[in-house]
């Protein structure tokens, strides 16, 4: 089976000289859901920002068979939808409906088609009733779902979620996990939340110092590395 994403030897260094990625090889296959685990600053977010060319390091990246180059960026951004950690950064239009339609309009859909895509995505994420509301009036969970609708409206083949449970309470996390399981796209989930990773992914990669140092079935990897949250007590 052809991989949806194929990355080899990805390296990236920030302007201040910090090496964020030190040679990452990765493949994502259709229908797969993969968790990216690892400590803060291990390179997970930097890695996912490469998947649609928001950051560009050294190495080879192919998405749905397309090499990542300036001329293929629009097509690749249509295929890879990223849900960012802070929904406030993703909801920049005056109303939820306009925000959901932002991506489809940029893809060149005519207003009627963009409106249809936006409404469908909002129905799918349970936000249809909030169409005319301003994003800053939404709760954290609603903002997350509205932001996800904005991504789904572009009908991506790959869904990348960066810390999707941040700001969510336990019921919000459960609802989001339930929603993600209903979506057919291949998924990459960056998370510190072991339970959420187990609920939404089957394979996990562990990042450390810009490298993938361990890999395996999600539950097994979490258990092996002791990555699930134990009681925060002093020894």
């Amino acid at each position: 089976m052809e991989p949806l994403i194929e990355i080899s030897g990805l390296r990236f260094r920030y302007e201040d000289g910090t090496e964020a990625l030190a040679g990452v090889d990765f493949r994502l296959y259709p229908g797969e859901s993969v968790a990216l685990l690892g400590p803060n600053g291990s390179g997970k977010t930097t890695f996912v920002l490469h998947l649609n060319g928001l950051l560009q390091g050294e190495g080879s990246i192919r998405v749905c068979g397309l090499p990542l180059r300036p001329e293929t960026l629009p097509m690749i951004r249509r295929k890879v939808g990223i849900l960012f950690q802070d929904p406030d950064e993703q909801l920049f239009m005056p109303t939820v409906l306009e925000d959901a339609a932002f991506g489809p309009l940029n893809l060149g859909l005519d207003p009627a088609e963009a409106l249809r895509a936006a409404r469908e995505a909002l129905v799918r994420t349970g936000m249809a009733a909030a169409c005319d509301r301003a994003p800053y009036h939404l709760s954290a969970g609603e903002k997350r779902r509205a932001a996800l609708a904005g991504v789904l409206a572009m009908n991506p083949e790959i869904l990348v979620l960066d810390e999707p449970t941040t700001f969510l309470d336990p019921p919000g996390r459960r609802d989001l996990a339930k929603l993600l399981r209903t979506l057919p796209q291949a998924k990459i989930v960056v998370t510190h939340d072991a339970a959420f990773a187990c609920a939404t992914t089957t394979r996990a990669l562990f990042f450390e110092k810009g490298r993938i140092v361990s890999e395996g079935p999600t539950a097994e990897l979490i258990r092996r590395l002791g990555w699930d949250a134990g009681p925060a007590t002093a020894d």
Partner: protein
Amino acid sequence: MHHLVLEEWSRKNSWIHARDPRAKLVAALALVVAIGTCPGAPALRFGGYALLLGAAAASAGLPLAGTLWRACVILPFAAVFGAMAWVAGHPERAVAVLLKSFLSAWVMVLLTGTTSPPVLLRAMESFRVPRFLLLVTHILYRYLFVISEQAQHMRFAAASRGGAGRRLRRGGWQAAAGAVGTLFARSHARAEAVHRAMLARGFRGDFVLLSPLRFGAADGLFAAWAVATATALRIL
């Protein structure tokens, strides 16, 4: 916050709301230029402009007192120049500065209260205002609320650690300066993140709207009428 109220107003329905934003922009600019170039501060002429703006607010369904209150935001700035003119021995010029500033601000409140920000930016784009400037304006406008919330969090954090209260003492000014610097850095980081999120959803520098702009005969008449009235009041 002011901009939240203006945004809610801009979603109302009235014949002024329904006008093409380019027609409203032309009308607003004509009024501001006419008001700004009035010699002196003739009460009758300024009264005429005030009546015109009051009628516009009423027909757009906007609360008159609310629009007047929001236009007052200009007064502290205008007062500085007014005071300078007064001190220089030109009290009538000081009054004119205050009145012209206030009326111009009222025009802008009515414009933004009857036109949603993306639509207004699109109109400005069609008048060839630089895109970069529009993008910065859009993001600044969108995130005033988030930035003010961050400022409030920082104020609480400072207060909970015995930091600056209402009366700033020596260390308090330093803390306030540090907070402003931090807020600026955070705003910059936020702007970068927002821009990244826009790029991720296919943004290429153009604001594409759900409802494309349409300039009809009614819009042309509205703009022509506004320009003619502003000019007539200026000449009379």
